[in-house]
């Protein structure tokens, strides 16, 4: 403690190859006699997932991507011993092909506003000392010593913070209801069950900065008057479990959990609860059932969980990102937070970008950022400069937004109006080679499998919708199916028990709204415009463009392609299984799909 190092080497991407990278770096630093001078730190996710494993070297701010253990000797020799940048390990901007050696100059980094992800990748998540060094637990100390619980609630209310789990309910109002609820004991709960298949922000945050969430949780407990808390994490998220468990133990050792926290007289402690992971498991009542040891199924919510929740007692459940923001609001004030974002949606939102996008990863931007800014500025655009077709947002049950809405500012209200939702912020980008109908069918399949089966609209209705969607992608659809899909979707939305059923028809309803022509093409013309739905497409070789190189014939798993050397080749449609390998490997764009 209290030892000054000349340089810190921050290694991210623990999921990837970093486990080998860490010992390799430590070994090399030792071999070069740089111990006590250079320190290797295991830091959390930086969000630049497509480029991992990434390394940031401070104080210079040199940033390396895709680092392999074999690169370590050169990296240490050049950068840490001689102070030179290793060009080949730096990020190259796809558009200009220019090298960007310093982290602060990356467009990916510069266009973000990092509130939730403020510490991610910058501190060691296993060290409470590093969190305290960057100002951690100051907000807790301030709240406990200088604010009444009601003042904390007022501050959070004034900030306009809305629950980041997806529903977007005012956090201040939830805490107020929790404070006013009668009954003892009261519980403070953390929802660490991130269910969306394409989302990884909650997991990344728990792994990279667990103390910020814990601090928010203790402040929340103080505000609502809870002395016991539970933190639920699916056991499969092993790195999250490791860092959260460690965080709770460290906080106890420093007296930040337990009796008489920081001499304030306030007592609070947390139990870590591990359970199975499921999509519906993140629903508020389902998670309370899971903490009680029951099957994680939702219940009707005419009585709020703030009054009757865990074990029938008043319970306040918050998402990890919501709690992470709380300490920043206390430290920097409600006004600061309310100054970011739009009129009704304050602050920032973390998005996980996936699909046809260059910068796959985690990004954070102010609420109200447009689709275009998210995709083309922060996201770095679409690979191979293909055309943007749609953006699907809000997890598997989010809706698709078409090109016409590229300039729409994204917040809770505009997204709901457009037939989608903010949800947890999962984003999938589709280009012109993505069939939105096939993608909607895929998500519906996921939702149908994940339905807990408790209520009929979701259990039966989503299954019927899936059958119809499958029929359409197989070329067996009828125009009347479109009306049935719409009616079914609306009924499911109106009558399902929980939010997951209520949102399940979104992928289909939104594509019906914005991509009706594609449905018509599938049904009436027997054609998949994106060239994806196998029953509706054929691969052919354009004789004029084909040079007869024979690569496609070599790669075809069915041996369906034949032809003489340097002569145009042909595909035997009888043998073709439409895998698309020939299309992908052809260097002359001679393979066409229709």
């Amino acid at each position, binding site marked *: *403690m*209290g*030892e*000054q*190092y*000349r*340089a*810190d080497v*921050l290694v991210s991407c623990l999921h990837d190859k970093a486990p080998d990278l860490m010992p390799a770096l430590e070994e090399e630093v030792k071999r070069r006699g740089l111990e006590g*001078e250079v*320190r290797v730190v295991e830091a959390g996710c930086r969000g630049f997932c497509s480029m991992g494993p990434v390394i940031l070297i*401070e*104080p*210079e701010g040199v940033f390396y991507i895709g680092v392999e253990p074999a690169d370590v000797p050169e990296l240490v020799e050049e950068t*840490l*011993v*001689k*102070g*030179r940048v290793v060009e080949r390990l730096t990020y190259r901007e796809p558009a200009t092909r220019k090298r960007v050696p310093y982290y602060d100059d990356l467009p990916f980094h510069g266009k973000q506003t990092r509130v939730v992800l403020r510490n991610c990748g*910058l*501190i060691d998540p296993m060290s409470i*000392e*590093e969190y*305290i*060094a*960057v*100002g951690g*637990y*100051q907000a807790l*100390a*301030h709240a406990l*010593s200088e604010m009444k619980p009601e003042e904390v609630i007022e501050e959070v209310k004034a900030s306009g913070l809305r629950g980041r789990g997806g529903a977007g309910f005012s956090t201040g109002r939830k805490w107020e209801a929790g404070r006013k609820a009668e009954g003892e004991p009261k519980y403070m709960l953390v929802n660490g069950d991130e269910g969306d298949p394409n989302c990884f922000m909650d997991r990344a945050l728990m792994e990279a900065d667990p103390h910020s969430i814990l601090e928010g949780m203790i402040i929340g407990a103080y505000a609502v008057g809870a002395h016991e808390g539970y933190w639920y994490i699916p056991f499969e998220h092993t790195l999250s479990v490791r860092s959260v468990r460690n965080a709770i133990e460290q906080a106890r*050792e*420093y*007296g*930040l959990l337990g009796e008489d926290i*920081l*001499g304030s007289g306030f007592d609070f402690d947390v139990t870590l609860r591990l359970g199975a992971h499921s999509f519906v498991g993140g629903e508020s009542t389902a998670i309370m059932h899971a903490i009680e040891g029951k099957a994680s199924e939702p219940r009707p919510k005419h009585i709020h969980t703030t009054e009757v929740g865990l074990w029938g007692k008043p319970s306040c459940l918050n998402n990890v990102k919501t709690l992470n923001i709380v300490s920043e609001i206390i430290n920097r004030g409600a006004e600061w937070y309310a100054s970011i974002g739009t009129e009704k949606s304050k602050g920032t939102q973390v998005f996980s970008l996936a699909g046809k996008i260059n910068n796959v990863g985690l990004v954070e931007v102010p609420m109200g950022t447009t689709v275009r800014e998210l995709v083309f500025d922060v996201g770095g655009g679409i690979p191979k400069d293909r055309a943007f077709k749609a953006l699907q947002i809000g997890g598997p049950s989010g809706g698709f937004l078409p090109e016409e809405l590229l300039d729409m500012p994204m917040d809770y209200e505009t997204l709901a109006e457009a037939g989608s939702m903010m949800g947890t912020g999962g984003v999938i980008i589709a280009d012109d080679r993505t069939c939105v109908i096939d993608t909607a069918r895929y998500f519906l399949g996921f939702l149908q499998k994940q339905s807990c089966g408790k209520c009929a609209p979701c259990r039966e209705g989503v299954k019927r919708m899936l059958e119809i969607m499958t029929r359409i992608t197989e070329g067996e659809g009828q125009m009347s199916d479109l009306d049935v899909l719409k009616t079914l979707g609306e009924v499911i939305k109106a009558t399902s028990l929980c939010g997951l059923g209520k949102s399940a028809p979104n992928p289909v309803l939104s594509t019906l709204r914005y991509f009706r022509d594609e449905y018509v093409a599938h049904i009436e013309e027997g054609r998949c415009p994106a060239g994806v739905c196998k029953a509706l497409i054929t691969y052919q070789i354009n004789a004029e463009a084909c040079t007869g190189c024979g690569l496609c014939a070599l790669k075809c798993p069915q041996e369906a392609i034949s032809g003489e050397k340097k002569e145009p080749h042909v595909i035997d449609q009888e043998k073709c299984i439409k895998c698309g390998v020939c299309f992908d490997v052809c260097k002359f764009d001679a393979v066409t799909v229709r």
Partner: protein
Amino acid sequence: MPKLKSLDDLQALRQQLQKDIKARTDAATTITVGMGTCGIAAGAREVMHAILNELESRSIDAHVTTVGCIGMCSKEPLVDIQQSDEPRVTYGNISPEMVPRLIEEHLVKGNVVDEWVVGRVGGA
């Protein structure tokens, strides 16, 4: 570890811990040591260690970074000191024994040690 009993305890601990992550926080002063082959051969590593020790013992807030050879090999070890908007001052032929005086004069008293200076760059 001792339990934290108050806001003051926490703040005292934070002050102590801030040193640990010095390299990751902004500092008004950057000291740059030339670490090309020429610099290392002339003893730049020992000079850098002396600088680190001096900063630590005097609790001075500064980053220490390394750079490659800038071509003035005969004047190695070269040490540059840059403070906010001031010109970047380059000192040449620095030995570990010279470090305490360099830090004392330049960083503590704010006087450039003219006799050791080999050049100045920029400044607002």
